[in-house]
């Protein structure tokens, strides 16, 4: 169904134009944009549903024709997977954006925003289906630019501007690496099917480039700096799309580049990726739990989850290299499962956070509280998402963590003795990251969602019908992707076959045991829910006669709202234990010599950024300032440059002979 795919991309392009043209008429946009994205989703589904023998080629005309660039597109199982994911996420987030953004509130026309939104979606689709290096790069650049403009919707604010710039600059640095990668890999021809086998010494450098380029987009730890800045700055539906779809493109790219280089790669890459993954999952969780900003916390949690996905990929690569097929299958499988699951739950969380922030007008966790009493439904969604992301049964996060641990068990059991240690470290790391992430979300759910509102001013805030439906869809999706996990595994089997170069039937057979246990787990989840329901009835009967009163609180006489445990005090024991990693700036303010009012606040800092990147940048800046003295302003000096150049060249020419 090549035509469906082309039509899907075309619709997105048309949608972009449409939103530009009707930029100033929100009423038309309100109909047109959901329509175009729904059509794109439908067409994408059609394209995936009827692949021509699993994949197809086509040539689309793009770029200067004289460069002889016939740009191929292809839909293989890996692409199909991401295609559906991206289209679904774009559809959901666009719906949310339509529902929550009010053109009347700020008078800017929304057309430009939706233009970039369509471009972003379209470019992600193009990346996924691109079967040509040039097309891939074009789409990748478009994705970066369009997401930059989406982040900068409220560019009047300085922090939004800075965040956007940081994002743009870092993605461009990533693109430099990708340019190198695709050009070198495309030496024989830019089309991917022309890629020949790369000699190992080159392959390792190339994979490093790919890792930096795609890692930059995925936001794994040494390259994560943009992520916690950009997500809070962007409007919520954009941060949701970025934190799910956009960073998944990094995963896609990494898998794709792995496929190109697979035969010549050394096993060390598996370890490197696992180390990166562990680093970003543990550090991401650490930073997440010490944040004071709701969206920053979620952003750091994305870093953590990207780390988990990277661990999965690393396991897959290691598995391939030690010829442990099951490990490879499970590693990649866990990575893919977690990509879906993370997208669903992080989408839910970000969108809910958007609702909360929009209603409460602050992202500061210390000021939020008792949301359950103000917006119960949103609170429910948030707790649901938190459960999912903490990997608690019966939701989908549990399934992917289960697969991850299962895969590491396979590694532990493998005949290679050292693998026991390697994968034990992985188990410990993942579990540690999981524990920290749980703490982070306990912090939000416990002190922000539950309890009393911290100020009297907070008002109840009902959700819009459409927002309810969209969030409901995601909520249900979190549950369904857990319940249907066996089907999901079966659906991604062709991808696993592709990634590990294994026959489909062998994939099917190798995964049989895992699928059975997954099936039992699913059964257990159902039992859990069933038992919960039944016992809940018993319990309700049991506690039917109940009264409501004030919190006892050990008989404390006058508890006030301000006395509740705050988010940062909740995690304080941990931040104290790990204070070298969780350096906090604290600031105290008092107003006069005899202070009657004092303020104390702490702020978690990103160790890597503050201690490495910023000093490095400052050093670089000094260096550049020294260089600027070359342009001194004196004509005589400039003439000396010319003469010296001439002399040096003449002398060099003498030696050249």
């Amino acid at each position: 169904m090549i035509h469906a795919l082309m039509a899907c991309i075309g619709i997105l392009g048309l949608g972009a134009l449409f939103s530009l043209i009707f930029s100033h008429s929100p009423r038309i946009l309100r109909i047109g944009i959901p329509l175009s994205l729904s059509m794109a989703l439908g067409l994408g589904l059609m394209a995936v549903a009827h692949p021509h023998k699993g994949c197809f080629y086509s040539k689309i005309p793009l770029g200067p024709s004289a460069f002889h660039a016939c740009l191929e597109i292809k839909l293989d199982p890996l692409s199909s997977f991401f295609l559906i994911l991206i289209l679904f996420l774009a559809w959901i987030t666009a719906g949310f954006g339509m529902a929550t953004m009010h053109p009347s509130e700020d008078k800017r026309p929304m057309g430009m925003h939706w233009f970039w939104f369509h471009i972003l979606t379209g470019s992600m689709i193009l990346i996924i289906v691109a079967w040509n290096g040039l097309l891939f790069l074009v789409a990748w650049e478009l994705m970066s630019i369009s997401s930059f403009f989406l982040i900068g919707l409220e560019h009047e604010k300085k922090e939004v501007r800075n965040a956007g710039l940081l994002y743009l600059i870092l993605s461009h640095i990533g693109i430099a690496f990708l340019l190198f990668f695709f050009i070198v890999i495309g030496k024989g021809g830019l089309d991917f099917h022309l890629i020949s086998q790369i000699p190992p010494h080159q392959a390792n450098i190339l994979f490093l480039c790919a890792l930096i380029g795609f890692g930059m987009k995925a936001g794994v730890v040494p390259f994560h700096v943009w992520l916690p800045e950009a997500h809070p700055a962007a409007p919520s539906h954009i941060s949701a799309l970025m934190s799910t779809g956009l960073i998944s493109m990094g995963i896609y790219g990494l898998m794709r580049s792995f496929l190109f280089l697979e035969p010549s790669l050394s096993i060390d890459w598996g370890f490197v990726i696992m180390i990166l993954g562990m680093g970003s999952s543990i550090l991401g969780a650490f930073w997440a739990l010490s944040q004071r900003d709701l969206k920053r916390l979620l952003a750091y949690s994305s870093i953590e989850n990207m780390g988990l996905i990277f661990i999965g990929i690393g396991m897959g690569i290691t598995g391939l290299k030690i010829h442990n097929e099951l490990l490879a299958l499970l590693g990649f499988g866990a990575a893919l499962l977690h990509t879906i699951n993370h997208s669903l739950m992080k989408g839910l969380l970000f969108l809910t956070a958007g609702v909360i922030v929009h209603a409460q007008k602050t992202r500061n966790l210390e000021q939020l509280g008792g949301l359950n009493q103000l917006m119960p439904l949103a609170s429910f969604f948030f707790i649901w998402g938190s459960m999912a992301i903490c990997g608690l049964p019966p939701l989908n996060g549990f399934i992917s963590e289960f697969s991850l641990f299962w895969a590491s068990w396979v590694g532990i059991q493998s005949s290679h003795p050292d693998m026991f240690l390697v994968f034990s470290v992985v188990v410990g790391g993942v579990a540690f990251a999981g524990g920290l992430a749980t703490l982070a979300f306990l912090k939000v759910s416990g002190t922000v969602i539950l309890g009393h509102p911290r100020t009297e001013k907070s008002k109840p805030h009902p959700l819009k019908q459409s927002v309810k439906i969209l969030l409901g869809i995601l909520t249900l999706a979190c549950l369904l992707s857990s319940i249907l996990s066996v089907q999901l595994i079966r659906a991604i089997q062709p991808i696993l076959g592709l990634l590990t170069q294994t026959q489909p039937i062998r994939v099917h057979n190798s995964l049989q045991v895992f699928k059975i246990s997954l099936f039992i787990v699913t059964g257990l989840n159902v039992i859990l829910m069933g038992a919960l329901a039944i016992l809940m009835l018993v319990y309700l009967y049991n506690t039917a006669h109940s009264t409501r009163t004030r919190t006892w609180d050990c008989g404390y006489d006058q508890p006030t709202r301000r006395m509740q445990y705050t988010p940062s005090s909740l995690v304080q024991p941990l931040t104290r234990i790990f204070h070298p990693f969780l350096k906090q700036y604290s600031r105290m303010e008092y107003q006069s010599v005899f202070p009657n009012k004092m303020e104390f606040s702490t702020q978690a800092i990103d160790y890597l950024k503050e201690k490495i990147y910023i000093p490095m940048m400052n050093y670089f800046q000094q260096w550049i300032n020294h260089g600027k003295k070359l342009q001194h302003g004196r004509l005589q000096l400039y003439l000396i440059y010319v003469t010296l150049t001439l002399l040096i060249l003449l002398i060099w020419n003498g030696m050249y002979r």
Partner: protein
Amino acid sequence: MNLIAFLMAILFAPLLVSIIYKTKASMAGRKGPKWFQSYWDLSKLMRKQSLYSNATSWIFRVTPVINVVASLLVLLMLPLNGWPPAIAFPGDLIVIIFLLALMRFFTILAALDTGSSFEGMGASREAVLSSLTEPVFFLILFSLAKLGHSLEFSKALLQFNMHLWSQDTTSIFLLAGAIFILLLTENARMPVDDPTTHLELTMIHEVMLLDTGGPDLAWMEYASSLKLWIFCSIWISIVCPIKSSGWINLGWVIIGMGLVGVSIGLVESSMARLKLSRVPLFIAGSFVLTLFAMIHIWSAIG
């Protein structure tokens, strides 16, 4: 037959708590509560009227049930020395850990739901400690699985017989020590937490239940006794080198449970509660034991 372990847990879990109390009392030279005092307490609590803070929400209501359901599910997957569990499949040990995490998650949420600063304090401590114990727990269970060559927990634990004992004595000892520390930590036992003190500021687990009363408290107490049983049965299954699924197993279980209960009681009456800032070191001790065990296992295979 597969349900014996499960039924025993349901029936005798509160009794295990009583054993601990009895030991502590006799060490202190008191007579102590009756053997079945825990049961009477539960039934009395069940008959009381419940009282809810107006800060609380559905979380608070659902937590007792989740606690009970999750621990029951775990028990369904847990062998008891020789007796196999009702459900067993590769990877069940992962599910066990996550079910325990689910319990903890909701307990902490319920504590925070009341908006009380005391309970917030307890929740904070519980949350931080559990985030530290979780990786250790994972490592211990995976090491056990490695020793027993199966990700199916019951299958792995069945391997802990004489043969394995004679082969891997050191690592089994180390792991048994590690899991005992974990048992004390997870079940709010003495060097970590003092469930019987009158000072709320020093408590961890109990302070979270300050606002829970009546039937809710009963459910919660029952769930925590089940949790204690869970850890004890894991410990017994490791330590006891004789596995048989016949009635003879009953003897081993009784001896084992009695031993565990008594030893917990002994620890409780001989040790003072650790300073809170020392508790992570206590957990680190468990981690170090596990690490040594793992290195031992590695050197054995490599």
